[in-house]
């Protein structure tokens, strides 16, 4: 075993093995605790039961439909939030009076817990899809605005100055310097916030919903079907992992200049 050196990089192979082995360890401990009888089945299903329950959910109870609905809600609310928040964040970062006008409110609003809006949104928008989308929208929009504004505000000043000496107009600087310079950062912010959006959607689906992963989880609780609950949670984790990978791959492909 070579010495552990700070910041020493690790190869692709060992990295994969190390990453997978923690998952294996995790499942092993779980299996040991449940199958070995150390934890009551009522409270925590064992891995095998979880897989069986999951299979049943998928084949008999149309869980794929629930997954689709939840994914749709997350993406819908998230895209709405991004469409509003990214341009607003860029404006705030670029134009200080806009920032002075909006920043205090947005800073305040981003600490409002999205989940706490659920009851209020049900009163306003009923229990339909609008309400679900709004929860995710509220949860994401202020975060994105603020983080994008900070990123744009920190653009290298010398690049902005160079653009002006090359004849760029104020709008040209925004369009051809501030936006491309921060595009990778903005994509990173979106990736991060998309992760958070998953928490909001599940909470929104706990209350007043008749479909979605969150709905399945809350129903399973009434039935003490912990295997199903855990399966639902794991599915969320897997979708998160996959979308994260996809996002990262997309960013790498779009912003080759960063790695070049």
């Amino acid at each position: 075993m070579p010495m552990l050196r700070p910041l020493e990089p690790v190869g692709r192979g060992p990295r994969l093995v190390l990453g997978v082995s923690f998952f294996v360890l995790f499942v092993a401990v779980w299996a040991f605790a449940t199958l070995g009888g150390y934890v009551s089945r009522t409270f925590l299903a064992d891995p095998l039961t979880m897989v069986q329950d999951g299979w049943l959910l998928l084949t008999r109870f149309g869980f794929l439909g629930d997954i689709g609905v939840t994914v749709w809600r997350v993406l819908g609310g998230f895209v709405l939030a991004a469409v509003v928040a990214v341009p607003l964040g860029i404006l705030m970062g670029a134009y200080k009076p806009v920032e002075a006008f909006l920043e205090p409110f947005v800073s305040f609003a981003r600490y409002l817990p999205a989940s706490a809006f659920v009851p209020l949104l049900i009163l306003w928008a009923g229990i339909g899809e609008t309400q679900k989308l709004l929860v995710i929208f509220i949860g994401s929009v202020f975060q994105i605005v603020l983080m994008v504004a900070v990123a744009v505000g920190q653009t290298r000043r010398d690049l902005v100055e160079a653009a002006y000496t090359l004849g760029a107009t104020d709008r040209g600087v925004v369009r051809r310097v501030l936006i491309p310079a921060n595009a990778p950062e903005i994509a990173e912010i979106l990736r991060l916030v998309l992760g958070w959006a998953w928490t909001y959607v599940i909470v929104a689906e706990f209350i007043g919903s008749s479909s979605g992963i969150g709905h399945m989880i809350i129903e399973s609780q009434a039935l003490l079907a912990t295997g199903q609950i855990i399966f639902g949670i794991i599915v969320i984790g897997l979708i998160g992992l996959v979308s994260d990978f996809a996002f990262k791959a997309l960013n790498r492909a779009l912003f080759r200049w960063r790695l070049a």
Partner: protein
Amino acid sequence: MSQAKLLVEGVSRVFPAARGGKPTRALEPVDLQVGANDFITILGPSGCGKSTLLRIVAGLDRPSSGRVLLDGRPVAGPGPDRGVVFQSYTLFPWLTVAENIEFGLREKGMPAAERRGIVEAYLDKVGLRGFEGHYPRQLSGGMQQRTAIARALANDPEILLLDEPFGALDNQTRALMQELLLGIWEREAKTVLFVTHDIEEAIFMASRVVVMTARPGRIKADVRVDLPHPRHYTIKTSPEFSALKAQLTEEIRAEAVLAAAEH
């Protein structure tokens, strides 16, 4: 005597005090005339306000007093008539070499075909043919500065302002870059204002060397360099060159001593 291209009249700069400190007088009133096709190098010890002066001419900073005239028109802000090459690498990292060079041309709204012609020409002039598709990250420091020079020149500015553009390069590369820039100047009759603290560099390229005092910066001496053109690097060992070097070394040494005493 050629007519004045650039006129710096009584330009000074005082930076407001940081909390609890005194205001910094970076530049005492400076007067400078730059004729068309002049290659002026500004030589001065570190911290004497060379960058400040250049930034004011570029329109990136405002003078506390005085004014700058380009072709008789007062400078109010940065613009494409004054190309700037900075000491730090300021290529746009998300654009390739070719895209960096055409940045200003696109801002002007020049059609693509015309842009391509100009970019090709400058790729050859700065010797970056074959690297047009590279991103700045993939270039050495010298190549980045050559791209930056091409980017500034592609705009066809009235005057080219350079702030220690070769300061971070090794000696060999720096010498090559000096020849390259001088060659472009000799062929294309540009007006250049070049800031440096390197005496040889200042003499080799200049038609006039302007020496500044230690902070607060003033102009201390203005020395004509009548070495013949085209200049070859071997000129650096000629007696005329050595005489100029000895003279400027004396001028600058006194200032360096002052500057060092202050810090």
